[in-house]
C-alpha cells in the first residue's frame, strides 16, 4: 500500500445519503477475478441518469451512511481506480470504512454541515498527519483511529505486520485454540 498524507485538490459532489455498494459498483462487475480496472464501471447505472456529473478529483464529498450493504471491496477499488484519494461524509458503513483503509483510500468523517460547506467550497486540503480538512470555510479537525492513521501514513502492509507477530499466533494455537470443528474432515 502506498503511503498517504496530504490530499489536495478539487472536490466532487454526490449529494445523496445511504449510497450502497450495489450502486457504487453493480453486481455484474463482481465477476472479474482481477483487482484492477473497476473505475470505468463506478456508479454504472446512476452515471446514465440525465444531469449526472462526477468529475475526477482527489476528493469525493457525499451523504451519510455511505457504502452501506454488501461487503464488496470492489467498491473502494472502483472509487480509487476512478481517481478518488479521499472520501468525506457524515458517516460510513463499518465494512466499507475498513475496506477503504486497507487500500489507502482515506475515509474522513465530518459533521453534516461541514460536509455541505466543503461541497460548496469545491477545493480542499486534507492533512492526515494533522487530522485536518482545510477549505474556504476554515480548518476542520477529524478523528481517525491512531493505529489506522499510522499504517496509512507509513503505507504499511497489514499482513506483513501480523506475520511479525507469528509467535503470538503460534502460542495462541498451542494454548488457547478451541477444539474443532475441523472442516477438512467433513
Amino acid at each position, binding site marked *: 500500500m502506498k503511503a498517504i498524507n496530504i490530499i489536495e485538490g478539487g472536490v466532487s459532489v454526490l449529494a445523496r445519503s445511504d449510497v*450502497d455498494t*450495489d*450502486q457504487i459498483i453493480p453486481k455484474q462487475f463482481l465477476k472479474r*477475478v482481477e483487482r484492477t480496472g473497476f473505475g470505468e464501471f463506478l456508479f454504472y447505472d446512476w452515471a446514465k441518469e440525465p444531469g449526472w456529473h462526477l468529475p475526477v478529483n482527489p476528493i469525493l464529498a457525499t451523504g451519510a451512511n455511505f457504502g452501506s450493504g*454488501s461487503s464488496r*471491496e470492489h467498491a473502494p477499488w472502483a472509487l480509487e481506480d476512478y481517481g478518488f484519494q479521499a472520501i468525506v461524509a457524515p458517516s460510513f458503513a*463499518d465494512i466499507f470504512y475498513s475496506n477503504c483503509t486497507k487500500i489507502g483510500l482515506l475515509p474522513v468523517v465530518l459533521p453534516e454541515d461541514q460536509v455541505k460547506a466543503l461541497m460548496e467550497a469545491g477545493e480542499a486540503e486534507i492533512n492526515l498527519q494533522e487530522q485536518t480538512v482545510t477549505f474556504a470555510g476554515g480548518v476542520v479537525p477529524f478523528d481517525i483511529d491512531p493505529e489506522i492513521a499510522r499504517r496509512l501514513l507509513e503505507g504499511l502492509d497489514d*499482513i506483513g*505486520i501480523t506475520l511479525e*507477530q507469528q509467535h503470538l499466533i503460534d502460542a495462541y494455537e498451542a494454548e488457547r485454540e478451541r477444539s474443532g470443528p475441523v472442516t477438512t474432515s467433513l
Partner: protein
Amino acid sequence: MPKNLFEKIWERHEVAPSLIYIDLHLVHEVTSPQAFESLRMKERTLRRPDRTLATADHNVPTDGSTTAQQIKDHLSRKQVEVLEQNCAEFGVPIHSIGSDQQGIVHVIGPELRVTQPGMTIVCGDSHTSTHGAFAALAFGIGTSEVEHVLATQTLQQKKPASMRVNYEGELGFGVTAKDLILGTIGQLGTSGAQGYVVEYAGAPIRALSMEGRMTICNMSIEWGGRAGMVAVDDTTLAWFDDAPEEWREFTSDDDASFDREETVDASALSPQVTWGTTPGHVAPVDGAVPEPSTESEERALVYMDLEPGRAIEEIELDTVFIGSCTNSRIGDLRAAAEVVKGRKVSRDIRAMVVPGSAQVKIQAEKEGLDEVFRDAGFDWRSAGCSMCLGMNPDTLQPGERCASTSNRNFEGRQGKGGRTHLVSPQMAAAAAVEGRFVDIRGWGE
C-alpha cells in the same frame, strides 16, 4: 465482573490487542479470487485449511447444473472454476456446484454443524452475521481481510461497541422473525447499529426457532451492525447431536452491561412490507406508503413508482422470489408451502422457490414440498443465491415488481430497474396467490 456474550467471545480470541483469532473462515467465489492471487504473488501460505471452508453460491445457476463447466455465462463459469482451482492448490475443503453439500454459504455453515457457539466466524460477505444466531461472533469482511485471514488465521480489528435489543411482548399470529427484524430496522434506522455488535434478547427471541434467529441475525448488517447474536439456550443446543453443556456459558451474565440498550415491542408489530430502496423504508401491510421526509425517500418513491398514501395491499406484483440466506431454510419453505397448499399462483405472476442448499432441497423433496409448490405454479429451483442479487441468470427485468424474501431492496439489486419489496416467506407466498400484497393474518379464512 459480569460480562456480556460479545465480551466473553472477544476476550477468548484476543491474540494481542486488536488482533483476534478466527475459528472458522468461510469462502465463496466472488470475494476470494484476488485474495488467493495476492497470496500466490507474495509467496505466502494458507495457515489453517482445516478452519477454512468454501462453497460456490453467488454465481451458480439454479437450473440444476452440476459442474462449473455447465455454467453458460463465461465470467461466472471462470469465477467458480478459479475458486475450485484455488481450493485445490491451497488445500481448502470445498462444496462446489454439484456437491450434495453445496449451498448458500450462510445456510451450509449451520447445516454442516461447523457453525458453533462461542466461535469467531468471518467470510467475505456482509450476511455472515447470520451465524450469530448460534451465539458466535460472526461478521463480514472485505477481500484484503480475507487475504489476511487466509495468511494468518487472525484479523486486525478494533473492539466494537455492544448493544442489546430487548424485545418485549410476543409476536402475533402471522408475524414472523422477518417482520420482527424489518420492524426493528424501521424503528431504529438503517445506520442505527453502526459500530455495534448487537445482541437480540427477550422472550420473543427465545421463542424463535434457530431458523428464525438466523433470519434476525442475518439482517443485522441492514441496519449497520457489525454483527448480530443470540445467546445459547435449549433451542441452540438441540440443533446439535452432542452439544457440550459448557456451551451454556455463551450467554450474557445477568447483570452484564452494554454500551447501549434499546427496547422494541414485538406485540405491536404487523407483517411488514418494504416500499422503498433501503430496508428501513418499511410499513405494516395494513398501512400505506408514507409521505417522503428525506431526499433518500423521495428518490426511492420515484424509483419504486409509488405515490404516498397508496395502500400496501393495493400494490400489484409481477414476480415472487422465495429464497436467499435470509429465508431459504427448510422451515421457511414449510411455512410458505403451508400457505400455497391447494391454491394457485395468480396467473400473471412469475413465482420461484430456491432452496438455500442442496440439503434443504433434498429434505423439501422428501416432504413433498416441491410438489406443493409446483402444483401451485411455482418454479422449483436448485440451491444458490439466485435472485437475491442477480449475479446469475435469475434476475428481474426493468420495471418488474417483486415480493422477495431476501434482505436488500436496493436500486437494481435483483436486476437493473427491478423493484423489490422485502417480506416474510408466508407473505410472499400469499402475495403470489393474490397477485398483490395481502395481510396474511386475515387471509384465506
